[in-house]
C-alpha cells in the first residue's frame, strides 16, 4: 500500500527535502503531489484523495495556518491530517496551529527518522512502525 502525499511549500528546495526524507525513511509515498501555497494545495485536495499533507507556514497567497483553517471547515478535508513543517517552533505557535487543526509539527531541519516518526504517529497512532 502506498500513501498519497501532498507537500506544500513555496520553496522547491524544501519540497525536495521532504520528498527525499520520505523516500529515505522507507515510507511508500506514491503519488507525491506538490503545491507552492495554500491555494494550490486546496486545488490538489479538491481533485485528489490525499492521505497526509506536509505544509509550511509562511507562504504567499495562502499560508499554512490559513490552509489548516479552511480544511478544518470543509467536511471532506477535515479528516485529512496536516503536518506543519516549519522553522518556526515557539510553544505558542505550535499550540495555535494545533488548535486550528494541525495534527503534528516537524521542525526544520529534520532527519528522515523524524518524518517517519511523525508519519506513523499521525496515520498509525498507537503503533511503533508501519509497513513502510
Amino acid at each position, binding site marked *: 500500500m502506498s500513501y498519497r502525499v501532498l507537500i506544500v511549500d*513555496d*520553496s*522547491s*528546495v*524544501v519540497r*525536495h*527535502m521532504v520528498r*527525499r526524507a520520505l523516500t529515505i525513511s522507507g515510507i511508500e509515498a506514491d503519488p507525491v503531489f506538490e503545491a507552492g501555497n495554500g491555494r494550490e494545495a486546496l486545488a490538489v485536495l479538491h481533485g485528489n484523495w490525499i492521505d497526509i499533507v506536509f505544509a509550511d507556514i*509562511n507562504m*504567499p497567497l495562502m499560508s499554512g495556518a490559513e490552509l489548516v483553517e479552511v480544511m478544518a471547515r470543509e467536511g471532506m478535508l477535515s479528516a485529512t491530517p496536516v503536518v506543519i513543517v*516549519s*522553522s*518556526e*517552533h*515557539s*510553544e*505558542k*505557535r505550535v499550540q*495555535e496551529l494545533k488548535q486550528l487543526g494541525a495534527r503534528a509539527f516537524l*521542525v*526544520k*531541519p529534520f532527519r528522515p527518522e523524524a518524518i517517519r516518526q511523525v508519519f506513523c504517529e499521525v496515520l498509525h497512532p498507537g503503533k511503533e512502525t508501519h509497513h513502510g
Partner: protein
Amino acid sequence: MVSKPTRERLGALVSGLLESAAFVFTEIVEDKPWASGDILGARVTLEHGERAELSLCLPSDLAPELAANLLALESDSEEARSSAGDAVGELANMLAGTLAVEVFGRDVVCKIGVPRVAPEAAADHDHHFGLAVCHVALQTDNGQRVDAALAVVPAETGRGS
C-alpha cells in the same frame, strides 16, 4: 528584543545548522572586511513588537555546494546550481526559526518573513555587517567565509523588502 545573542551563540547556531543540514563544517574566525569575490546574501525578518533582520552571507560559489548537500545532488549539477539561491534562503529561514525563540522567547509568536536572496557588493555587506547588534564570521574547512548578522530595523522598512 528579549535577549541579544552573543557572537559565540550566533556562531554556534550557524555552525550547527550548516553541519546538520548541509554537511559543511565551520569555525568562528576574526571579523575582517570581505576581501573579494561574489557574495550571496539571504535576509529574513523576525517581528514581534520590534523588528529584526537576520542575514546570512556567503561566497556565491559555495551556494551550489550547500544546495547539493541539502538535496543529495552532485555539486556541479544543473539542479544544484539552479537551487543555490533557494537553498541559501532556506538555510537562513531555518536559522531564523531557531533564533526567533532565543531572541523573543518560547512563549510568543514571532512573525518570520519570507527569505530574500540577492547578490551583495562587498562594501555594502561590510557596512551592514558593522551596523548589526550581533554578528559573526565563520570559515568552512575549505577556507570559504560565511557571515551571519542580526540587526534591528525600523518596523515598516526592512532593508530590501
